[in-house]
């Protein structure tokens, strides 16, 4: 069993489609250009796993990872 689940946005792949922010506003933030990064250290609070999955599976640039640690 994973200790912790974390989202991560690859900044080199992100092109600012902003799907992640729309689907999981608690887990992602956008910079002034609209490019995404994970909120805080990316830890997914319990109950938001489904939103993390949705964000990952809707990113057109495949820039989002859900990491088990």
């Amino acid at each position, binding site marked *: 069993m994973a200790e912790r689940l974390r989202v991560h946005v690859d900044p080199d792949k992100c*092109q600012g489609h*902003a799907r992640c922010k729309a689907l999981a506003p608690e887990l992602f933030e956008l910079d002034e250009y609209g490019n995404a990064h994970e909120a805080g250290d990316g830890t997914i609070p319990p109950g938001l796993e489904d939103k993390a999955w949705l964000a990952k599976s809707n990113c057109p640039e495949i820039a989002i990872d859900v990491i088990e640690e």
Partner: protein
Amino acid sequence: MSDVSQPAAHPPVIDWVNDFDHTDPQWTEDPFPIWEELRAASPVVHTERFLGCYMPTTYEAVREIANDTEHFSSRRIIVRDIRPEITSRNVAPPITSDPPVHKPAKQLLLPPFTPDAMKKLEPRMRAICNELIDGFIADSKVDAAARYSKYIPVQAIAHMLGIPESDSDLFINWIHMILELGIKDENKLLQAVQEMSAYFMAHIEERRSKPTDDLISYLMNAKDKEGQPLEESHVLGSLRLLLIAGIDTTWSAIGSSLWHLARTPADRERLIAEPGRIPTAVEELLRAYAPVTMAREVVKETTISGCPVKAGNMVLLSFPAANRDPKMFPDADKVVIDRRENRHAAFGLGIHRCVGSNLARMEMQVALEEWLKRIPDFRLDPAGTVTWSQGTVRGPRQLPFLLGKAM
């Protein structure tokens, strides 16, 4: 007025796989079975038309090309009969830019189009939609393209640029000349580009003495990475881009969405009962009816999905065809308005992701919400004809609806 001969009509297509033509009436009317046939033949097909042109047919091949800026240039972004020289007068940065000049040009335009910036624009959008609906709601029939979807994005971008919304018909005509007639007629394209440039120059002059807080002033005040003001040709090119890219793309997406809902009462009823599903449905409508097909020019020979492509050819980079690839999307030809996994490519992939995607999404959501609130019952008018635009952007240009419950 012109001594240039009229553009040649294209012979009808008989062999789609080896001789495709995206301006053929059959493609304009119903491209989906054609893409299926092309995809079954090869991940990349070729035509001798348009001075040589490839088309990737799979999502994977489209992604590969969109991400490969070394072999594929964006300096030409429309597949046309001719390839005029590239000059400062016909560029539209950043969409026509390649790395390394692309990134700084794009970054200039991104801040005014973030989701937060779009939220501020939303009340004006709702008002625009309702003003348009007020104009025909008392009637029993309406052309929803001509009276509704057409004017929503044009008024929104005019609002952002700080140019009169009442000039909408002028802008719509330029876009028609550039994106449709311009494929085959160079004169029409040049005329529209010149008129647009003159129009924007007048506004630029006006703002020199009276600065405003709109996008024209924003670009005039912008600095390049050396801290210098942008060249006037850059400001003009970007303004032309914002006007061209912002109008018939979203007009088409809203029109196709209404067309789908007119023909699919179950989806319509579901969205009326559960308006919270509209944002998800919008993504699926964008996938299924993606309006925009961009182009690239092959500048260096390479291989895509195992298919060799040669320099000097254009590429019809069909995001709509990618979105119908069954390898990427189960039941790709079915509209599933609550599709959960939807990495569609309607706004492009890679560095040229549509600058206005957040604006387009907001416009589509608001346009559908306001329409469904006020006009829950509508259907295609069997006495009318739905017509579709040709070429670079696909969407309904005539959308005859009967309003109210069927008798």
